[in-house]
């Protein structure tokens, strides 16, 4: 499990990991691919299916899969992998393609103008005061 995210690191230190040292360039992880195979958003939910994976998973895919044990967002996986969102999406799409992960895009019914949704948020926030 990666530790604390880097804080205020200058650009040239973005790929520096406390334990691993200098990290490889991001698109290397995705095998040079720069586009996910399906539409996936930062707030798409992903979750491991538990189905056996027949393909051999590389370390990055395995790590991504391990972070999907419970339903979570692409953004959280990307942060924990310390990979750019686009590279994380490529890895996760691979996992969806091989049946290891389910995904769901943000609900278009969760319209920001939907008063019922806003009321639900309001009540939850007020309980936190």
């Amino acid at each position, binding site marked *: 499990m990666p530790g604390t995210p880097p804080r205020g690191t200058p*650009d040239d230190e973005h790929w520096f990991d406390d334990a691993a040292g200098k990290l490889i360039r991001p698109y290397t992880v995705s095998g040079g691919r720069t586009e996910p195979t399906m539409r996936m958003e930062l*707030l798409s*939910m992903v979750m491991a299916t538990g189905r056996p994976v027949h393909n051999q998973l590389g370390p990055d895919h395995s790590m991504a899969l391990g972070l999907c044990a419970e339903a979570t967002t692409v*953004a959280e996986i990307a942060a924990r992998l310390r990979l*750019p969102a686009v590279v994380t999406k490529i890895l996760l799409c691979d996992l969806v393609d091989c049946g290891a992960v389910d995904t769901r895009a943000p609900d278009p019914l969760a319209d*920001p103008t*939907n008063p019922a949704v*806003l009321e639900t948020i309001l009540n*939850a926030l*007020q309980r936190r005061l």
Partner: protein
Amino acid sequence: MPYKEGSEFFSTALKLLIAGGFGVGKTTFVGTVSEIAPLRTEEILTTASIGTDDLSGVERKSTTTVAMDFGRITISSEYVLYLFGTPGQERFWFMWDELSNGAIGAVVLADTRRLEDCFAAVDFFESRGIDFLVAVNEFDPDYRYEPGDVRGALDLKPEIPVIFCDARDRKSATGVLISLIKYLLETHVDSPSLENGAPA
């Protein structure tokens, strides 16, 4: 399609944006209200079309990396609220379309000593049609302004709430979010006016 059969396991993630000038306390704000320690995610953006003068002396870059700090608040079994704050590099995250698409609303954090720092965020949300309020993070009581002063300086429409907060204080920062949601309800529902004063 795998997502259909599994959809009952998934909650819906909703998005609020926390914007403002550099060093105004956005990441602090996110950390104060979030139920998890703030995480950072990055995206690689193509910047070929940006007309920026900030890279003078640097070869014209084709991509740049933009970082976002974010936290989350579980609303219910059905909804999770994500708060995305911009740690810096304002002019680049404006290009991160995916971030602003589908946002419920936004908080523009302002520092009265450097109000002009949040002009860009105000312009951005106005142009994108994203409803927002302005929360003045009070670093220094000596610089206390009236909401009207801030409104005038930022040339805000009269309906946009201006409130004061302490981004380090959980109740105060949560109060900002409550004010924002109340404002959104007012904006989207034909209801009598709700209070939109200072948070508790």
